[in-house]
């Protein structure tokens, strides 16, 4: 059974009376513990796709199913946006605790859970800090802790490191992989950075715009930890870019 399955998912907007397709016949199966990257030029509908999966947009055709149990999207899916979307009036701990709102955990259990995930992302010392006191990378790590705290089966990430500088981005990619190894979750990460996709993912979906559709599926199949300078990665990069550019 897959952690996530999309079958014949299509979506269109009505613009000035005319139907404009943004996603056309998307089929995707994400297995447990698999990391899938979606790359594509801007406007290819990759962010829209995540919004459908997380339940922010219910207006689509086709079917989306989340895992084996008959649960709603929310209890199965954690979402990290490009901007951290932390609540400025809550401490880091308060923000992570939001994810536990819909659970039956006791106050102590909630505190233990938030502390655990803050430790996991290296923010244990910043539990009482407010988001404005954090750097961009720290805020994004807090957002990841928040998305993981209710222990979803799938972590969706919409260009999570897109706003960070390249060194920090590489560091957070490594951190993400180490979190993933400790917390076996499936990850679907949308990015426009092919190297990021190749470093992280088991499988890469290359999308094409107008209307958004999957053009190529690249099985990376390299063992981790990967070497960013590996010639095999360079070959795969050439293949992805040939489709994209």
């Amino acid at each position, binding site marked *: 059974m897959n952690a996530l399955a999309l079958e014949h998912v299509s979506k269109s907007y009505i613009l000035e009376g005319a139907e404009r397709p943004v996603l056309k016949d998307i089929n995707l199966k994400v297995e447990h513990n698999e990391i899938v990257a979606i790359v594509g030029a801007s406007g290819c509908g990759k962010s829209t796709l995540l919004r459908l999966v997380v339940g922010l947009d219910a207006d689509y055709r086709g079917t989306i199913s989340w895992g084996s149990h008959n649960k709603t999207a929310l209890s199965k*899916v954690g979402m990290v946006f490009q901007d951290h*979307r932390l609540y*400025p009036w809550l401490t880091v701990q308060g923000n992570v605790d*939001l994810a536990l709102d819909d659970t039956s955990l006791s106050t102590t259990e909630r505190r233990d859970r938030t502390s655990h995930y803050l430790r996991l992302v290296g923010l244990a010392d910043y539990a009482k800090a407010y988001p404005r006191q954090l750097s961009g990378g720290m805020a994004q790590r807090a957002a990841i802790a928040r998305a993981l705290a209710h222990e979803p089966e799938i972590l969706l990430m919409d260009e999570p490191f897109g706003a960070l500088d390249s060194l920090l981005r590489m560091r957070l990619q490594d951190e993400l992989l180490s979190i993933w190894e400790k917390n076996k979750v499936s990850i679907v990460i949308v990015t426009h950075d092919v190297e990021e996709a190749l470093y992280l993912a088991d499988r890469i979906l290359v999308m094409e715009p107008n209307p958004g559709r999957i053009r190529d599926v690249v099985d990376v199949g390299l063992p981790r930890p990967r070497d960013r300078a590996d010639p095999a990665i360079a070959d795969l990069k050439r293949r992805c870019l040939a489709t994209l550019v």
Partner: protein
Amino acid sequence: MADRSLRTTGFPRGAVLPLAAALIWSAASAAGFLSGPMAVSPFEVILTPFVDPSGRELWMALFASIARVLAGGALGGLIGLVLGYVAGMYRIAALGLAPTVHTVRQVALFAWIPLLTAWFGNGESTKLVFTALSTFFPLFLATEQGVRQAPLPLIEAAQTLGLRPWTRVRKLYLPAALPSIYVGLQIAVLSAWIGTIGAEYAIGNGRGLGSYLASARDQFRMDIVIVGVFALAGGGVALSAAVRFVTAKISPWSQEAR
């Protein structure tokens, strides 16, 4: 402006103009330019609330008015907050409520007094309802706008986190609306103060700064009238400062950010 110069220079530049006016006033009354039953010297005015038996009633009147502001303001403010929240949250409520509120708001505040006295009589309830009314409008509008301006990215985050409705109120919409509510509160407290004094003045009976002023005028006690006017200004400044103080205390996240 006055606040800032106080802080930056240590010298209350804002006090220069009133002090100069007081000086001219004293000089004029000492030199005999001001005479007649309506003319009083600043010295008399300063002493009035402490030595004069009628003047000493100022404190009770001031206290009664402030108590009325707090009671009526709490009532009207709470209703404004709740209805403003509902109107900000639900489009259907906004469509149903806003036109009525905006139309009713166009009625000049003091035009309500004849109607209110007809409904509630010449006593305490009319003054309370009037104060409540003068607080309701600014808080309704501020809350409605603040809630409606809650940032969409944070609303989407609430959806993806599966926040329950009451948690959304406490952790998202109210904090997001707070800056706007604070501005509304600043306006509301002054509106309530003016409303209270106005109602007391217009109705004329009972304790309060307004009725105190009205009776001093009727008795040609210009010293008390002037003291009353100063008390009115002082009360407004104090209430406004109290609101600023309290609101600064309960939003620690915004203080350093600005």
